[in-house]
């Protein structure tokens, strides 16, 4: 292998001269974190609503939930982002389309919403499974107490279902973080994007991607640890997921 290793490259100034390559990567990491958090909030909100809809007795609600989930999870994420970013504005009336295209930070919001909706289909499926795993008697007992349907979900079903699905939700959160890398297709220069820029400028391919890998790993370790702590702090003895 005729490769000139240079691990000091991270402390060398990048081509703009303003920062070092390390700063470039850290800036990318920050954008990755911001995008992932934004997407994760979207995923949790929409996923919870759709997940609940799929367990309601109403036929139209569960049909809508089914269609939503199948629509978002059966299309590659890459294609979805491309559709949101390039195709949607063309389908709108010209003035609305132009307004949308010229919004500042369009790649960030498109990526956050696009990845969020894609992940929401997966969150919805898990929530449905979580609610489905509760004994039927829970729902019946709650109704017998005189709770309305909203109260049944709010006070009985959802608190237990969310505790049950916390471990799989952790992996969905990790997936959300990793999926942000797809957003370079719409020009969001996050961690992977910055690693690519770095290798284009400096030609130090392996150093750039090794650093990106380490940063992704560290970020995910932090998330896993935080989610463990969260699981422990919300666990209730006697519940299915409690100890």
């Amino acid at each position, binding site marked *: 292998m005729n490769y000139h290793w240079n691990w000091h490259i991270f402390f060398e100034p990048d081509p703009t001269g303003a920062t070092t390559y390390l700063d470039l990567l850290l800036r990318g990491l920050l954008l990755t974190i911001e995008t992932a958090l934004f997407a994760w909030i979207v995923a949790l909100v929409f996923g919870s609503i759709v997940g609940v809809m799929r367990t309601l007795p109403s036929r139209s609600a569960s049909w809508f939930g089914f269609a939503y989930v199948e629509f978002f999870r059966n299309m590659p994420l890459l294609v979805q982002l491309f559709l949101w970013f390039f195709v949607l504005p063309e389908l709108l009336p010209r003035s609305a389309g132009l307004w949308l295209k010229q919004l500042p930070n369009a790649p960030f919001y498109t990526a956050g919403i696009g990845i969020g909706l894609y992940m929401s289909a997966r969150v919805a499926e898990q929530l449905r499974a979580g609610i489905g795993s509760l004994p039927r008697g829970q729902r019946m007992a709650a109704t017998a107490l005189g709770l309305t349907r909203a109260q049944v979900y709010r006070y009985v079903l959802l608190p237990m279902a969310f505790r049950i699905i916390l471990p799989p939700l952790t992996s969905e959160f990790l997936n959300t973080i990793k999926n942000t890398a797809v957003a370079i297709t719409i020009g969001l220069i996050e961690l992977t*994007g910055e690693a690519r*820029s770095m290798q284009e400028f400096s030609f130090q391919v392996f150093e750039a991607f090794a650093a990106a890998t380490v940063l992704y790993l560290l970020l995910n370790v932090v998330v896993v640890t935080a989610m463990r702590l969260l699981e422990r702090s919300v666990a209730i003895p006697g519940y299915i997921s409690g100890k």
Partner: protein
Amino acid sequence: MKTLHILGLALATVLGVSQAGAEELTGTLKNIKDTGAITIGFRDSSIPFSYLDDHQQPVGFAMDICGKIVDAIKNELKLDKLEVKLNPVTSSTRIPLLANGTIDLECGSTTNNAERQKQVAFTNTHFLTASRFVAKKANNLSAIDDLKGKSVVSTAGTTNIKQLTEANAARNLGINIIPAKDHAEAFLMVETDRAAAFVMDDILLASLVAGSKDPSAYAISKDAFSKPEPYGIMLRKDDPAFKKLVDAATAKIYTSGEGLKLYDKWFMQKIPPKGLNLNTPIAPELKAEFAKPSDSPDPDSYKAM
């Protein structure tokens, strides 16, 4: 074996090694001789330098030059047969594949600059290109200052986006700079009005415009963000014998007039697969470089005669 001796001597002088070690071929040349094959890395859409035609075969200006280099290697090593293997590369894979020996030459449109020379070597420059921008004619943008306050796209990780950033700061233009993943996507942004202009190497802009739905709708600026920068064919660093041979072969192509003929074929006439014509007459700087081939990464060293 006489040529081998001369080659070995040249190698010995360059490296300053002892005579005993200089008898043998080393590096890439030894490898080519042993395996009877050379591997060329090509790009799939660097029109007209290196791209796939309608039969999925790599063709282009740089590919033709590499073909001649291969002939020169074959002569030099006195091989009856030299197998040419073709390997596709992208901007992210070209360095690892060259470093680990998968490819021996990268024939495309890679900019030769000082920073990259720390990692790889380049042979004589085969093209010079400056950073300009393309915009829709309807928007009437021709000078860099016309971009004030507009959204302008460029491809992430290129020297072009760096020059755009610098010009933006230096002239206080308040441009909203959008990075794009690749050239096709960046051009799509101009096509769909997401960006008013796209800053890139002028020759790549010319090929994107020629291949667009309506080439007459776009205009490339006269104003340039940079001096003309050199493109070179890339080879492994620290292999002086191979570089010397490739340099001599390319110099022969350019000085003999063959270079001009190839230029005419790829830049002034219809090229496959769609019969596009880039219609880009040779720049005076490149003409001067062809007369006096150079592998310098410094844009200032290329001057019109």
